[in-house]
């Protein structure tokens, strides 16, 4: 037992003290906060120069109504859209189009909107612009055109409306999740939380699983494993290794969670200074997130870490390990890909099967619990299956590990692997 502890300690300390660990532990939150801040800034910022537009209106009389929908202002008070000229049913459509295209090319215009004669019957309109990827702008112009068309159709039927915006204003749909114990408001934040949870589980299993594998391969390639094997039982060595790497992951998460909590609390405090009443925490964490995910995560980690360790024991070099880890990593990727099935139909037979299958349940059962908590017996059964499989896999892995760490050269075939299991 003392020897296992020594292995855990070494594995933990040598990893925690590396630059890579410090960088990823400190860097990842900084990076994610940075990305979040930048994307938030970009998403809320409007195009900062006036969009000069001309309208080629082959239907006629639509331009003023369209410009009604383009009355946005820039932050400096300038109008966001400026109508340069309207071509109302020009006799030579092609010439005008050519001229307008040239103006866009010469940057005299930012774009022109071409409305076909049959637009009321569903013929497509076109926006000619140098940058069709500016979604903010194209979406606004599209909306303005559609509103103008609706107004035209209404007026053609004798309905005259001055404030179309008022008529067209919609409302948002609030999701209320009905559960056994009551109901709770759910919105985008719960979806984000589910996706983050799945992502975190997936990334963690892969990253720390591979870390365990690399640690095994490193001891093999450096040949120190022979000295280790003469001092400690291989199963102890494997256990110590898996626990040590788990400790590294735990430390990392603890640091992240603490900073996360700090940032949230501090952020809320700062927020309430500007907007009193907004002091509520950004996320309210349902208790279910705190109970099941950690349990499934720990079991899943042991399952995958021992699988990765067994793979590491089969190979003799880092490059080879990259090849053999593919099948295991693909199973984890499959869990990510199958996640939407759970989300859409958490109680379908496929979902139930996926959340019972021990290699996918660590990720997908957690996901299913957060979407719609299944009956307790299903959670218990899934967990029991996963624990049983994990115990089995650890035993098989330990045997492969015990033989594999002393084998160099050719990678074993499946038949040879089965023979390894019988060695004493």
């Amino acid at each position, binding site marked *: 037992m*003392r*020897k296992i502890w020594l*292995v855990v300690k070494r594995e933990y300390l*040598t990893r925690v003290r590396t630059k890579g660990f410090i960088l990823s532990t400190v860097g990842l939150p900084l990076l994610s906060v940075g990305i979040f801040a930048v994307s938030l800034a970009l998403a809320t910022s409007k195009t900062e120069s006036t969009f000069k537009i001309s309208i080629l209106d082959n239907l006629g009389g639509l331009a003023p109504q369209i410009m009604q929908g383009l009355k946005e202002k820039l932050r400096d008070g300038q109008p966001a859209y400026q109508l340069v000229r309207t071509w109302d049913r020009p006799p030579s459509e092609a010439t005008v189009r050519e001229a307008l295209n040239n103006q866009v090319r010469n940057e005299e215009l930012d774009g022109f909107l071409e409305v076909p004669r049959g637009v009321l019957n569903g013929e497509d309109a076109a926006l000619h612009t140098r940058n069709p990827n500016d979604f903010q702008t194209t979406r606004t112009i599209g909306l303005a055109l559609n509103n103008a068309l609706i107004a035209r159709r209404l007026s053609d039927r004798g309905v005259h409306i001055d404030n179309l915006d008022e008529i067209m204003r919609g409302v948002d749909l609030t999701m209320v999740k009905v559960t056994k114990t009551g109901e709770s408001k759910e919105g985008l934040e719960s979806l984000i939380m589910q996706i983050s949870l799945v992502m975190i589980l997936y990334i963690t299993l892969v990253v720390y699983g591979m870390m365990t594998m690399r640690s095994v391969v490193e001891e093999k390639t450096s040949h120190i*494993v*022979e*000295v280790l094997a*003469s001092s400690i039982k291989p199963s102890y060595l494997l256990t110590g290794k898996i626990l040590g790497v788990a400790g590294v992951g735990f430390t990392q998460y603890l640091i992240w969670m603490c900073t996360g909590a700090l940032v949230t609390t501090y952020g809320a405090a700062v927020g309430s200074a500007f907007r009193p009443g907004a002091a509520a925490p950004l996320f309210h964490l349902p208790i279910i997130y705190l109970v099941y995910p950690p349990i499934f995560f720990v079991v899943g980690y042991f399952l995958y870490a021992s699988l990765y360790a067994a793979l590491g024991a089969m190979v003799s070099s880092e490059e080879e390990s990259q090849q053999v880890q593919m099948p295991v990593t693909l199973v984890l990727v499959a869990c990510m890909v199958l996640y939407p099935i759970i989300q859409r139909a958490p109680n379908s037979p496929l979902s139930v099967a996926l959340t019972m299958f021990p290699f996918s349940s660590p990720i997908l059962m957690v996901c299913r619990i957060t979407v719609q908590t299944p009956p307790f017996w299903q959670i218990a059964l899934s967990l029991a299956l996963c624990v049983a499989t994990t115990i089995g896999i650890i035993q098989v892995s330990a045997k492969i590990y015990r033989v594999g760490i002393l084998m160099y050269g050719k990678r074993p075939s499946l038949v*040879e692997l089965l023979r390894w299991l019988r060695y*004493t």
Partner: protein
Amino acid sequence: MEAIAVEHVTKRFDTVVAVSDLSLHVEQGTVFGLLGPNGAGKTTSLRMIMHILVPDEGAIQILGQPAGEQTQDLIGYLPEERGLYARMKVREVLVFLAGLKGLRQADASARVREWLERLDLAAWSEKKVNDLSKGMQQKAQFIAAVIHQPPILILDEPFTGLDPVNATLIKDIMLDLREKGSTIILSTHRMEQVEMMCDAICLINHGRSVLAGDLRAIKKSYGKNTVRIEYSGDDSFLDLPESVEKINHFGAAVEAKLRPGADPQEILKAAVARGVRLSRFELVEPPLHDIFIEKVSEAHA
């Protein structure tokens, strides 16, 4: 009580029999040479003694106890394939390995310091293993084998890669440890080292013991059937097929193995007749080198 007693041990890997009905007896306080050609089963035998592998048949006793987890701490091991954690500090690796052999942290630290001092590595204790030269890494690995003062020390090719100064340093430590009661198993292909250091040997081939026992007794049993000659001049005087069975050339010297019953005087006469100047003419026991080759090729024939 014997330091190591291996009784009728067999180890198979699938269809390959790596070790077959092997018995070894190593007396305490001796240096024991485990010899054999490549792939003879030496490493497998050593691994079974260290309980890295478990025999399929037979039994192994270490200082009277059956080989197992508890006996692992009684043995220190320098494997042929050297290796330490490349990115760890020298001192930390050694303290860790000492801990795995059952030493307490404080004790381990103190001994690591002493040994680094003794092997002239003190200045490198806080350096990464990677930063050490091959020879220094090898000395560090030697420390890992002896740090817990094991009653049994298994050294696989301990001198390869060491310069004469360091080789002498290691050899002196080995002899010092034996003096203090340690038993040393030396596995090597360098026969002159075996002749100089070992009290007893076991030669294995194809997993079987083909020659075992006290080294002096073995050599004596072959009798003084070899002539060691140092000379200058033409070597055609050795062309005596009726009395010389085999000749080993070493540049300035030769070793000629005599046919049974042949008279060494015949060679001397031939040399004098041809006017060759002899600086040495000695009747000796066959070198271990020749015994090794003879025993191993016998099995192949």
